[in-house]
């Protein structure tokens, strides 16, 4: 069974004349170790899908199963606990608590889970080092660049060793160099650390890091493309393209 599985997922905002169908009939599966990008024009329901996958919002119809749990069956407390242990979030904005330093921010999920402070901080620092922020552990968010803040957010999303990492436009306001770095870390999270990563992006460059792209349009999945790197003949194809351009 896949880590994430949705069945006929639908979300309608509002009622009557003002009702907006943000998502309809979404059937999606994501396995552990898989890196999936979600793309589509603005307003097509990408964020809505992420909210539903993360249990931040309840679907109008259909189900979301995470690691065998039907999110619809869980009361708020259990959902909260699930978010804490199984899911890591990375948002575009407002990711960090401004009064806490990088380590404290990254340690939050563990602290919220009642782990001892020393242990939580040690793990947070280890993750900060893995995302390349070993030398910025005691800086507050306002002393970090946007890319560095996002990396703290990634460390925070990974620190509790969640099965699933959800990112909504994590590189939305970064330059292409920082975007590459962030995408690289997410790629690593999937490949090396075995997390399922689902990421919303508008940037083809970032989407190309994923194993699979899901295209949304007007709330529907219109296409799914597998970008398998190991596929034979692929490198030959690249050669030809490069020759053509050179």
């Amino acid at each position, binding site marked *: 069974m896949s880590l994430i599985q949705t069945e006929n997922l639908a979300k309608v905002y509002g009622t009557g004349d003002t009702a907006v169908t943000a998502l309809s009939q979404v059937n999606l599966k994501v396995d552990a170790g898989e890196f999936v990008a979600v793309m589509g024009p603005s307003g097509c329901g990408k964020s809505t899908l992420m909210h539903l996958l993360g249990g931040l919002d309840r679907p109008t119809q259909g189900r979301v199963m995470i690691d065998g749990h039907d999110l619809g069956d869980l009361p708020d407390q259990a959902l909260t606990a699930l*978010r804490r242990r199984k899911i890591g*979030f990375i*948002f575009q904005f407002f990711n960090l608590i401004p009064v806490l330093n990088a380590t404290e921010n990254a340690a939050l999920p563990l602290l*919220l889970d009642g782990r001892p402070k020393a242990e939580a901080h040690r793990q947070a620092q280890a993750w900060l080092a893995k995302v390349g922020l070993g030398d910025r552990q005691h800086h507050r968010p306002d002393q970090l660049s946007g890319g560095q803040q996002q990396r703290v957010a990634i460390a925070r999303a990974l620190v509790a060793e969640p099965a699933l990492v959800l990112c909504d436009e994590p590189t939305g306001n970064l330059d292409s160099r920082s975007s590459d770095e962030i995408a690289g870390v997410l790629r690593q999270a999937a490949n090396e650390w075995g997390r399922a990563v689902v990421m919303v992006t508008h940037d083809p460059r970032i989407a190309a890091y994923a194993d699979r792209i899901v295209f949304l349009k007007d709330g529907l999945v219109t296409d799914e493309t597998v970008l398998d790197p190991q596929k034979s003949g692929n490198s030959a194809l690249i050669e030809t393209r490069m020759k053509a351009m050179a």
Partner: protein
Amino acid sequence: MSTYLTLALRYLNGRKLRTSLTTLAIVFGVLLIFGMNTVMPAFIGAFQANALAMAGQVDATITSKSGEAFPESVAETVAAVAGVRVVSGTLERGIGLPADFFDQDPATADRLTAVTLVGAVPDTIRSIASFNVLQGRFLEAGDGAVAVITESLADEAGLQLGDTLSLPTPIGLTDLTIVGLLPQRLLPGNEEVLVTLSEAQRLFNVPGQINVVDANFDTANEAARAQIEADIAAAVGGSFTIGVLQPGAEILTNIGTAQRIFTLLGALGLLMGGFIIFNTFRTIVAERRHDIGMLRAIGASRGTITGLILIEGLIQGVVGTAAGLVLGYGMGWLALAAVSQIGRQLLNIQVGAPVVTPGLVVLSVTVGVGVTLLAGLLPARAASRVTPLEALRPSIGALAWRRIAGLSFWAGVVLLAGAAAALVTGNAGLLALGSFLFIGGLILIAPALVNPIAGLFSRVLALAFARDGTAQLAEGNLSRQPTRAAVTSATTMIALAILVMAAGLITSLAITFTEMLENSLSSDYLLVPPTVAVWGVNTGASPTLAEDLRAVDGVDVVSSLRFAGTQINDVAVGLLGIEPQAYTQTSGLAFVEGDPETAFREIESGRGLIINGVLQASAGVKMGDDVTLLTPTGTVTYKVVGIASDYLNAKTTTGYLSQANIAADFGRAEDVFYQINLKPGADRAAVEAAFKQALQPYPQFKLVSGQEYVDQNRGIFDAAFAGIYAMVIFLAIPSLIAMINTLAIGVIERTREIGMLRAVGAARSQVQTVILAEALILAAIGTAFGLLTGLYLGYMATSAFAALGFPVTYAFPGQAMVVAVAVGLLFGAFAAIIPARQAARLDIIQALRYE
């Protein structure tokens, strides 16, 4: 846990100014409640210090509930009860000493203001308590004008064994030879002078009377002792009580009332504090919507969020309360130091240090921390309802408050209706409740009224700032956030309401009391004992003094007061015996109910009693009622024929009756206060000389001219009012701070918006004008409401005073209204200027980034 604490501390630290202003509000509330409640017991303690030091040695002390003397036979009745081993009947009376009696030096404060004369049968008192005679001997049966005193008293008076101790007594200055010295007192209280019972009865002019019976039992078994006490109570009857004498019980009722009023003020202060905290936390929650949403998204539960906000409140509550306790003690100490002068002059008491009881500390801490938590609870719960999505969608938060605002309007209307109903009842407790309802109601309906009022004021302001349409912009801002605007102006409202209320109340009180003062003390001369108004601790004079005074050439009328203690409906009451004929010529009562002429006629012709308002209120008696008065030997029924008060006794539970009746029912013929009028054209110098001559044996009385006394009293009165004004300022300062605080927070909250304005091209001066206009609109709304509320509350407070027994005519505080308008607008502008300048000076980028 430690994470939450870290987070809370960091957040608080991040907004130092706001945190300290918020905490200050709690500090002031706790300071008032705690400080005032340490002061009052110190007063009470000063009165109760006269309790017998011997109390520790005896099993039971039997006294008359009225505090008056009774026949010696009562001692035998007690002795006859089974289980009573020994009994001693004594006559004990405090003797108030005139100022500088021993040291003759007005420069140094007197340590001794009273002694207790104890008349005892030597053998029986030694059988009940041991007396360790250091020098000389103990009393012996048949001793006459001799006394045994403590070593400390001897030192204080500069006397030795064999010397003569002079004391003022009702039969004149009396000399006692010191025959023995006892160790100094261990327990606090008056120094004792032991004489034989017969000598005491002679000195106080009460032959065959005692006022205390001490008894020791023959068992230590608790149950048996309780049985014996019950048997004694049954044997002596209902007019006796098992317990020590408490002179001045009637003023304690009054001090209790004052304590309640101050506690109410403290509660008002705390209400204010709670309100400020509420507002701050409301802001905090709005400000941190993203943080909270993000925390929820990464797995913080609702409880965690509530806890986070509450911990912040708790920290502020604990710090504020601790500071409040310390400062409160300091204030109590200062207040006591300030009033001890007045206390000595007026009441002849020595006031000690502030009294801190564990109960009071617990209460203050509970109330201080409790209010903070309570005020934080609603915003904390609102915070816990912030959904994780709000971290991602920045615009949802504002809606929830608006819904609450709509609901609360009707709740506010209900509260206001309740307040109006309270005003009709005229009950003091309900009136106090009503004032809280009124404030609460106004706060609740304020949001609904902000829009129309803001519109009105903006039109006025638009004229002032006509150039750039900034007033409209400001009005728009207010209308978009009616709750915030309402909270801000409500703070102004409360601050000014308190000012106007206090002014109204104080003006009314001042006018009423001044009238009474002139009316009551308008005689040509007065003979004043050491303690005015707590007559029971004074040593008066036998009727011969009055005769002597009347005999002086040029004297027209001499009117005197005779005192006896009693109880009506279990309320301690001071009775004053007057001769209506003479009394009405030299003094006067201000009648609230009843016709003066009929009333005075009735107290002479039968058992008629005029009572004052305090007594009416505290004993729950009405005009025309029959009331049962406790006498030293039983009870007697009087009819209430009038409700009236004089200046000196307006504050204590007092009844006026004829001197014939007080002699017949209470066995009192001792004059404690005199007022004298001269014939027209009398030679004042000669008269004064003659008075001095007549007063030679009675140093307890001071001769003062009527005008001099009125002036002196007005001085004390003014001092007391200065004190009350200081209290009001104490209460107004935190309110004004709160006002500045909320206005400033309003501006700080909008820093981002201001950055945006600047970014789209608003000039600095325009930004400043917008903020200033906004603050002025808010201040104007608050001021308008504050004036209304203040007038209402002032009226309510005077009604409450009437309900407590001080009938006060309401005076319109015109001046205070003008001051309040000025203060409201000035502070409003002032509160806006600093943050407005800051905001305008802000780097646009920084303002936009402001989180």
